């Protein structure tokens, strides 16, 4: 019965909502600054707290929910991000909002395989040396499986970092990995430090996206690269409707069944709708000072990878 009533109420609600939107700015001058939390309106301070709670609640089931909701496709998206990054050994990566470590682990795997190939090439060149000379060369330099590459995983949420550290231990990642608690709007790092800055599925949860972009610009070295993997606007209208149907009907149900948490996943699908579309986000990145900003749509725009350089 409630479902049947809703469309009519929504029509009326639209008009009332518009009136409320006119009234709200006047009220807002006296009250704290407001922002969105999914489809709700909250104060900026509240948003930070609510987002923290969401990720605190979902941390343990985060990975399994990602697999269920995206049918495993999120792994492909993250692989594409790291391939696009194409890091060489010696790269220093900062992965912000990197909680459970998905990007960090892929980075390490990628660099490790490049390094292995490098070492193999070197061996081939050494084939004409004598046994003694080859043995000496081993002692001269340590093998360094990562080749001095490092990744710093920074996240505001301690629970997510905890899950990430446990995962790292479980999967056998130890060197080249650091876990730091930090806020994307105010990073605990010095200027001009990192070669690459990534933020995967994190920036839409930040209260002040422009501040996060400015911080990204600050901590990158000159010549450094900014990469953002985030949900975006679907270009195809038919797919868009299917995607909306799937997002609003299925995903909260999955959240309730698998994680026992409807509201967090309701927030998730709503926050995706609130995030600026590709071109608008590109403009925001340019505003922060990045150059050669571009984006690549994946899966018809369900996600997009934005890239920019500090030059």
């Amino acid at each position, binding site marked *: *019965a*409630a*479902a*049947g*009533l*809703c*469309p009519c*109420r*929504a*029509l*009326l*609600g*639209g008009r*009332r*909502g*518009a009136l*409320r*939107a006119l009234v*709200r700015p006047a009220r807002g001058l006296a009250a704290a600054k407001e922002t*969105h939390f999914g*489809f*709700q*309106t909250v104060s900026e301070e509240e948003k930070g707290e609510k987002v923290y709670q969401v990720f605190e609640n979902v941390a343990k089931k985060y990975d399994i929910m990602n697999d269920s909701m995206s049918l495993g496709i999120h792994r492909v998206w993250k692989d594409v991000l790291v391939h696009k990054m194409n890091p060489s050994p010696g790269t220093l990566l900062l992965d912000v909002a990197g909680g459970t470590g998905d990007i960090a682990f892929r980075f390490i795997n990628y660099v490790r395989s490049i390094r292995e190939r490098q070492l193999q090439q070197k061996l081939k060149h050494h084939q004409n040396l004598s046994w003694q000379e080859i043995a000496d060369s081993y002692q001269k330099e340590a093998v360094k499986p990562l080749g001095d590459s490092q990744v710093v995983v920074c996240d505001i949420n301690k629970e997510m970092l905890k899950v990430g550290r446990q995962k790292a231990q479980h999967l056998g990642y130890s060197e080249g990995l650091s876990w730091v608690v930090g806020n994307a709007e105010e990073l605990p790092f010095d200027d001009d430090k990192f070669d690459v800055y990534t933020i995967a599925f994190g920036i839409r949860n930040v209260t002040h996206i422009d501040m996060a972009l400015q911080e990204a610009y600050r901590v990158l070295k000159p010549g450094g690269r900014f990469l953002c993997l985030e949900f975006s606007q679907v270009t195809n209208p038919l797919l868009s409707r299917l995607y*909306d*149907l799937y997002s*609003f*009907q*299925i995903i*909260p*149900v*999955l959240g*309730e*069944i*698998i994680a*026992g948490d*409807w*509201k967090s996943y309701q927030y998730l699908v*709503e926050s995706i*709708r*609130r995030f*600026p*579309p590709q*071109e*608008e986000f590109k*403009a925001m990145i340019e505003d922060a000072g990045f150059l050669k900003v571009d984006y690549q749509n994946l899966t018809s725009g369900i996600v997009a990878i934005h890239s920019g350089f500090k030059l």
Partner: protein
Amino acid sequence: HPGAGGSRSPGPRALSAGAVRPRHAGRRAAAEDGAAEEQEGCCQLYPGHIPTSPLQKALLAAGSAAMALYDPYRHDMVAVLGETTGCLVLPNLRDKMKHDPEGYRILRERPRIRLSTLDVNRLRGLPDGTLGREYTRFLEDNKVSPDTRMPAKFVDDEELAYVIQRYREVHDLMHTLLGMPTNMLGEVVVKWFEAIQTGLPMCVLGAAFGPVRLNARKLRVLTTELIPWAIQSGRNANCILNIYYERRWEQTVESLREEIGIFSPP
């Protein structure tokens, strides 16, 4: 079916479709916000209520049933199953309560069984054999608390949400009256009794599928002694939701059993 889930997106999107994208996100957000807020406001009938479309209810019912079987410790899944499948049966239960003087009083006064409202020390001090004493003994022996009951989320009627909440809170008292512990065997027996009493599909499913996880010896005891007794008692007894338990702590369990019509446990 363009119900609750569908009305959230097409409306706001229709308003913003075709408009210039940059700088429009703010207006689009406000319009969406208005429509969604209105919808949340009108459809949220009680605190904790999550409005759901028929499709979502069906998916929840199927998913919660599967998850409850897979992981019996997910009590929240049993609760969700009860809410999503109970829509046909709950009105009957509510009417049964309305037609009974004590049940009608419960519906009006809406008592809740919670540690904050119960005076546990006083109940513990009551003589052995009374409802209050046996109930507290049951809570202590099985290390359970009445506060762990999930509030109703997916029932689309405020009074029916209370009915199912009352059923959940009375469940522990059922254990006490039937003398069944909270192990798998005891729970199955109580489910059989409740299935006969309430007709809730969740109880029927629990009664039917619960025994799957029992070993052969327990199954034998279950089928030969416990289930027949549970069915007979269930049929004979008055509606268990019509008893104002909070006013009967001093009554002995025996006399309460006789009054309701539950036979002595084997």
